[in-house]
């Protein structure tokens, strides 16, 4: 897998405040990387440096092998930025907005026309392309906001909190389109303070707080780092004590205890354990009516690492 973004040792301070203090991470082609942290953790400063908007005090950023500097346009075409604000012109139509930014990226007219249609299709605004953006709903504006970032086929797409203040339906549409992107081989840098989004979308996550990456890895790596286990609730009828005893004999199970109407199981990896676990339970003659798996969430990891809750 090719590395698209390599950020190394980024440091940036404003006056007395050290906003980012030695942040490094890499993102490979087709990978979605999440920067997870509360407001003010240094997420926006980090991605501003990655996008070439802000010069780091020290450290380097390479996108597709090109060094990114604020005073140079080299490598910019490989980056697509979706700012946190709805950064579009309300008095232009959707198509005019896309066309303007496409031209800033030096897209030839015929290619721009073709790509414009594709993007409008993807963000579901083909029908409304000639309407003024000021007449759009908030969700439609958000979708266009992302569409502009995709237009010039960047190799790295930076999404800064793209779902803030978005209705659940549009939010889902946005998340789905981000999921599709990795299939197209685009590297995605995604910042959020929504745990569920990071868990759903990101192949790897960096937890950032007070300008420092506290931990980085796949969700599973992060979770095991702090020793958190998957929790499986098996809803069964019959002898709950017997079921718990049988389950506890499995090597991957740490603990099994009877609860209200079933058995609670703590294990390392629920998904690989589940088939065997259900077979064992069935063998006791108990009647399984439901299984619920809750993997340990990043919220707990975050709390563990930083000692504070993720949401303000």
């Amino acid at each position, binding site marked *: 897998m090719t590395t698209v973004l390599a950020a190394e040792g980024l440091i940036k301070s404003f006056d007395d405040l050290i906003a980012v203090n030695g942040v490094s991470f890499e993102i490979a082609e087709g990978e979605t990387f999440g920067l997870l942290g509360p407001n003010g953790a240094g997420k926006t400063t980090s991605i501003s440096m990655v996008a070439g908007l802000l010069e780091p005090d020290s450290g380097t950023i390479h996108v597709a092998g090109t060094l990114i500097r604020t005073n140079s346009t080299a490598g910019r*075409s490989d980056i697509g930025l979706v700012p946190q604000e709805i950064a579009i012109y309300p008095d232009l139509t959707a198509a005019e907005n896309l066309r303007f930014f496409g031209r*800033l990226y030096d897209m030839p007219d015929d290619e721009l026309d073709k790509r414009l249609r594709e993007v409008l299709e993807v963000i579901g605004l083909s029908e409304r392309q000639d309407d003024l953006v000021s007449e759009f709903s908030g969700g439609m504006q958000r979708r266009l906001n992302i569409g502009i970032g995709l237009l010039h086929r960047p190799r790295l797409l930076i999404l800064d909190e793209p779902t803030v203040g978005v209705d659940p339906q549009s939010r889902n549409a946005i998340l789905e389109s981000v999921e599709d992107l990795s299939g197209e081989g685009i590297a995605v840098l995604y910042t959020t303070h929504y745990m569920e989004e990071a868990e759903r979308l990101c192949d790897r996550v960096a937890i950032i707080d007070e300008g420092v990456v506290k931990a980085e890895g796949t969700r599973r790596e992060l979770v095991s780092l702090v020793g958190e286990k998957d929790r499986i609730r098996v809803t069964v009828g019959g002898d709950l004590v017997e079921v718990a005893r049988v389950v506890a004999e499995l090597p991957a199970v740490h603990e099994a205890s009877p609860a209200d109407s079933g058995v609670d199981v703590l294990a390392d990896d629920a998904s690989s354990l589940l088939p065997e676990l259900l077979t064992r339970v069935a063998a006791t003659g108990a009647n399984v009516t439901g299984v619920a798996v809750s993997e340990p969430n990043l919220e707990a990891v975050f709390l563990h690492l930083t000692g504070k809750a993720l949401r303000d």
Partner: protein
Amino acid sequence: MGAATLIAGKDLRLRVRDRSAFIMGIVTPLALAYIFHLVFGGTFTAEALDLEVGLVDLDNTQVSQSLAEALSGLESEGILVLTEFDDATAAQTAVEEGETDAYILLNPGLGDAAIQAKPFTIEVVGDVDSQTTTQVASSIASEFGSAIERSQLSVTTAIALGEGPSPEEVVSWGEEAALRPPPFAFTDVSAETRQLDGNTFFAAGMAVFFLFFTVQFGVIGLLEERQSGTLARLLAAPIGHSSVVAGKAILSFALGLISMTVLIVATHYLMDARWGPPLGVALLVIAGVLAATSIMGVIAATATSADGAANLGAIIAVILGMLGGTFFPIGQGNDLLARLSYLTPHAWFMRGLSDISGGGEWTEVLPAVGALLLFTLVFGTVAWVLLQRKLTQ
């Protein structure tokens, strides 16, 4: 350059849809210039008004008639309109009813007093609100009086020198002295008119005053883009930072140029404004728009928000406009205010226009254009540096 014009083109489209720039840049100055033209149109030419002067000659001697002759000479030169009245009551009534502005009363005994060198008083009666005419009538009477005085003094001086005229000769010497050419005369020094007529003054004043508000729509766009987040998009694109600043400057320049051009053409046809030779006007307008863009660029660079820049810009534009004499002429002669006025681009614009609107060659705008370009150089450089720096903050 491509990116800069692209950004300017996009902004121009936004401004056209928004219509604010159109109202500020064209409708407002045109409406105000037209209203001022209606209100003040008459007063600007009032300086050359006909002076209505009456004469009541109750003396009716050779001496008194010579004043009547002098007055009719002035009338034939078009300086005043003379009306002769039979008595003071008729003249008084005419003044009170506003038919004549002032009258000169020559009472009986004037001729004798002149010859015998006795004190005598000419009365000038004027309407209290026609001070100029009263003053002129009084000056004419004084001038006449001083001719009499010169004649009297000539004879008296000769007598005092010891070899004066015999008593019989006194009158003929007096006549001789009176007929001599006066010891001084006025000669005309030629001057052109380098002052704008009323219509052109208000058209030009309003155009250049609102120019500063119009060009603001360009450079302030930078702050608006920052607030809306689109600036991040522009900066992330593969274009130089200078293209973004240049795009805004180009828009400012274009808006200013469009507004000035429309106003010049409109006021020329609607209000008979005389702007002067097109080449000179074009140079002046270009230099003026550049200077305005530069100054408003510095303001945009020092403000923290678009609203803040608009408010500060309005204050600066109003102060400069007032001091630069766009609403009323500033300063008399070479006093402090008149000198201060030249610290504003407005004053230079008005001066340059004054130099050519009265029929001067287009080259006469060059000093004013030079001054405006100096403003552009100084403020433009500061704005260019500060605005680029602002982008990366």
